């Protein structure tokens, strides 16, 4: 089982009557970049959020590196350290500087000494092109800068998997590229990534596979060329006509 970095098996998630996820199956290998597309409300966020157990599956199983996320006995916090997450609205800690946003989890979760954490934090800020912003508070940064800090914050825990839930949807158009560039670099370095996004440029440049979802179901999985250029399912075709 450990040959897959993420394994989603017969995953179902219900919110009362709403079936947000219906029998989803998806295996992601180490180093793969998987793009998840689909109309609003199709269950993309739900699937992502079940991977690090921000939501709990109604039935089915999810494994990260062979560790069962859905087993109540497994230590979910250990698994979450391995899984970085980037949110649509950044969710930076507004009372902390950019640097402290990155180091907080290091010092509280991993008990990294402060000096060492600061060093890691500064390196990561430089990596996302924000070396000069370490003392800035989130409110003083643009959306694109905030999202890059958020990516650096997730990377600080040295995760094996990164989840991105519409990382550029809340950004002004001119800021999308700076965030996508950071994500592209990550993809090139071999990070395993699950990305909910409709950025075609990123899909073509970085995605190994594309997953199309509709009404809680995974409808189609294939390479970007397969899914975008010759989709097998009618629903995929209709959706793509809609967004292109």
């Amino acid at each position, binding site marked *: 089982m450990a040959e897959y970095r993420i394994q989603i098996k017969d995953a179902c998630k219900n919110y009362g009557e709403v079936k947000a996820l219906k029998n989803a199956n998806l295996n992601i290998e180490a180093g793969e970049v998987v793009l998840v597309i689909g109309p609003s409300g199709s269950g993309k966020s739900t699937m992502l959020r079940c991977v690090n157990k921000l939501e709990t599956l109604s039935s089915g199983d999810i494994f990260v590196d062979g560790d069962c996320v859905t087993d109540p006995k497994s230590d979910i916090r250990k698994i*979450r*350290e391995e899984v970085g997450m980037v949110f649509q609205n950044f969710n930076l800690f*507004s009372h902390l500087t950019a640097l402290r946003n990155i180091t907080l989890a290091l010092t509280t979760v991993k008990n990294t000494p402060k000096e060492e954490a600061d060093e890691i934090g500064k390196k990561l800020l430089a990596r996302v092109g924000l070396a000069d912003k370490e003392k800035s508070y989130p409110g003083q940064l643009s959306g694109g800068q905030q999202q890059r800090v958020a990516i650096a914050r997730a990377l600080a825990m040295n995760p094996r998997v990164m989840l991105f839930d519409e990382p550029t949807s809340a950004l002004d158009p001119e800021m999308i590229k700076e965030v996508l560039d950071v994500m592209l670099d990550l993809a090139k370095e071999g990070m395993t990534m699950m990305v909910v996004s409709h950025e075609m440029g990123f899909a073509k440049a970085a995605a190994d596979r594309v997953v199309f979802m509709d009404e809680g179901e995974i409808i189609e999985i294939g390479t970007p060329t397969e899914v975008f250029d010759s989709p097998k399912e009618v629903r995929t075709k209709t959706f793509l006509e809609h967004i292109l």
Partner: protein
Amino acid sequence: MAEIVKESRIEVTDGALIPDSAEKSIFSAWNISFFGAIIILILLPILSPDPYKDILLFIPDGIATTFQVTVLSIIFALIVGLFAGLGRLSRVKIINRIATIYVEVVRGIPLLVQLFYIYYALGKLVQLPRMTSAIIAMTFCYGAYMGEIFRAGIQGVPQGQMEAALALGMTRSQAIWKVIIPQTFRIILPPVGNEFIALLKDSSLVSILAVSDLLRRGREFASTSFLYFETYTVVALIYLIITLFLSRIVAYMEKRLKINGRV
């Protein structure tokens, strides 16, 4: 994102007259009351030094006591309130229930009755200094109100903050103490300031337990000199000046928080 602070603004019911920043006129209600009170307080001993000078020499000792009761009570009430607020939001049923009962009980009993009750109930167990009993009673009462402020403040922090913290591998309680609570302080500062003013006014009730606060000093002076009207005029003016002054500080804090809202 300063809207967040605005949205979660907690409405005030019992503070003093809060200056409205839109009201710029020299003849604003606040200016008239505040400077009017100060002018009267200065003119009285000049125009009729006979009783007023003596009153003004006798009473101010009580101001320190009033502030002592108020400051200590508010500090303890903040601590009690933090836990009451967390309790009200707790997922553990029994903790939640206890916190809610506490808030309901306190809200349902007049402060003066609570003061008497705690003073005499405590008196049956231990003999505490009057001042201590007074502070315990004020803390017990205001802790409940602070609890409601903390609860609203915690709920005012966007949900995504908790999720981001959990996603990084923090425990719930690490997230609460390192991420959520520090952000509530910005939200609750103005309402806490208002509670401070309300508590300062309510602290006059402790004079009933013979704690020599501002009001008690006035009573002591009046009961020997029989100058009730003159004495209580001065007492009222001093309370008014203090609360109006504090309310201006609260308004200023609120404005500062909105301007450099680094949320």
